[in-house]
């Protein structure tokens, strides 16, 4: 059987399949459907220093092969996470990674610092790309300088594996990737959602309370894949790819384009068992081609003409 183990700095994954922040709750919501321990890891909902109520309803609209969300980082804050949620989920025999967000650098740093003390959290994913909050979030991720600043500040306090999650809403994503790499990010994950909008022609109102929201699902896959390939060719740290992955073939496209690991987001809503199916599908793909390790596939896109 093919070897699916990969490593991202000190983070060891039994397979390259993670679940994306905001789409998998705290894992518990999926316990009825799959064995969480079989995943490479789970990335829990965006966590901030203080509790947040998120945006008003309506927060979701369906689009062609995708959806818009305007959840806006609703979460109970890092302290509740540490005291109430962490004790319940630290039992998982897989990597539990916390997605960290903030309105300013101080908030990012304080939150990361608190999580740094949690034994069973081997990594954080710095969310500098949330399009659904007024302050911070995407503002950090669409500017190389501020992306570098927040990464640098968090790097000083956070000692374990630091993943920075990039926004696709930029002219040149390689510039941002290189900036956070230079400040000590161990890995970059991409993409977060594309900023989009939808209108109800009957009411003549926006379908989201916030007018614009984050677009995800298969509709964004071509853009995500392109960015993963660009970033893979621009940085030395491992790239984690996501955006519209619905099946094993999609995952393999990302791995061929340069992703060391991949995340499953919106697909979890369509099929709560999809993450496990994708692990099996990747295994099958490798076996059928006698590829002994997933590592041999990463960035393996053949570029010479046929």
């Amino acid at each position, binding site marked *: 059987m093919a070897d699916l183990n990969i490593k991202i700095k000190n983070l060891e994954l039994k397979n390259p399949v993670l679940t994306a922040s905001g789409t998998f709750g705290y894992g518990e*919501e999926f316990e009825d459907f799959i064995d969480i321990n079989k995943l490479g890891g789970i990335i829990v909902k965006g966590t901030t220093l203080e509790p947040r109520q*998120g945006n008003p309803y309506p*927060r979701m609209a*369906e*689009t062609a092969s995708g959806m818009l969300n305007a959840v806006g980082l609703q979460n109970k804050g890092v302290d509740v996470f540490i005291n109430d949620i962490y004790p319940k989920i630290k039992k998982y025999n897989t990597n539990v990674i916390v997605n960290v967000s903030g309105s300013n650098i101080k908030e990012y740093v304080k939150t990361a610092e608190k999580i740094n003390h949690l034994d069973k959290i081997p990594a954080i994913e710095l969310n500098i790309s949330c399009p659904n909050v007024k302050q911070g979030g995407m503002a950090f991720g669409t500017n190389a300088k501020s992306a570098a600043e927040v990464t640098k500040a968090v790097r000083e306090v956070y000692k374990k594996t630091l993943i920075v999650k990039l926004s696709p809403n930029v002219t040149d994503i390689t510039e941002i990737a290189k900036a956070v790499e230079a400040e000590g990010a161990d890995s970059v994950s991409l993409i977060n959602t594309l900023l989009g909008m939808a209108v109800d022609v009957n009411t003549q109102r926006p379908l989201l309370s916030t007018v614009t929201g984050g677009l995800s699902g298969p509709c964004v896959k071509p853009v995500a894949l392109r960015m993963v390939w660009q970033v893979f060719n621009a940085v030395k740290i491992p790239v984690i790819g996501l955006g519209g992955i619905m099946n094993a073939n999609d995952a393999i496209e990302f791995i061929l384009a340069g992703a060391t690991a991949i995340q499953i987001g919106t697909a979890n809503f369509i099929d*709560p068992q999809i993450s496990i199916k994708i692990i099996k599908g990747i295994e099958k793909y490798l076996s059928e081609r006698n590829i002994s390790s997933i590592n041999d596939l990463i960035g393996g896109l053949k570029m010479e003409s046929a």
Partner: protein
Amino acid sequence: MTTKKQIQDFIVLNNKKINSDYFELELKAPVKLPEIFPAQFIEIHIENAKDTFLRRPISIHDIDYDKNTITLLIQIKGEGTKTLSKIEKDASLNIIYPLGNSFSIPDKKEKVLLVGGGCGSAPLLFLAKYLFNKNIIPYILIGGKSENDILKIENFGEYGNVFITTEDGSLGFKGIVTEHPLLKKEVEKHNISKIYTCGPEPMMKAIAKIANKNNIACEASLENMMACGIGACLCCVVETTSGNQRVCCDGPVFDVKNLKGWE
């Protein structure tokens, strides 16, 4: 409810057209059904429907433990429900179930009122039957734009005392549900101790207002745009006195006293 959620392929036993807007699907479960409670719902994956990317939430309208089937009562709204309305016998439908909490069941001596409209009848008929089986005979007030929206009256009739309103007067009392004399007579005389409602939000809010004014307990089963249906995405929230709560798993049933903007 702490019933384990399942994902399974159900088989279509029957697809019955009620009128141009509504149809009823009877689905056979592949395994023994767990106990299911009124207001719980399922998430259906509708394959090959244009522009239907996400699953669709539909209430459980009836359940037959002997036949091991559930029945759905569905209104054609867009592409998803239109495609479902054409599904043929023996086709299979992938379903996640049972989802959500349920209406709370009163004790025997209470007099309760069910108020519904349109496809809000779906969970209410299940509730009426459930109450009836517990020897509680509810008042049932069903409203709609016209005759076409008044569904399964005979069935409701088996389980309670039915009152009907239509806006165009084509059936029953002419007007909207809140104008029906029943509300004046029974509610305001405090004969009713609890109201259950499901239907369009403005209707439910109006009912809640009457209930609050008369100090009657009231539970509403809400709808919302849902992406996951299992509590993971936080898309489906409603504002409550204890913050934003998820309609799909903290609800769909809420005590209206806890809903902000429903005073």
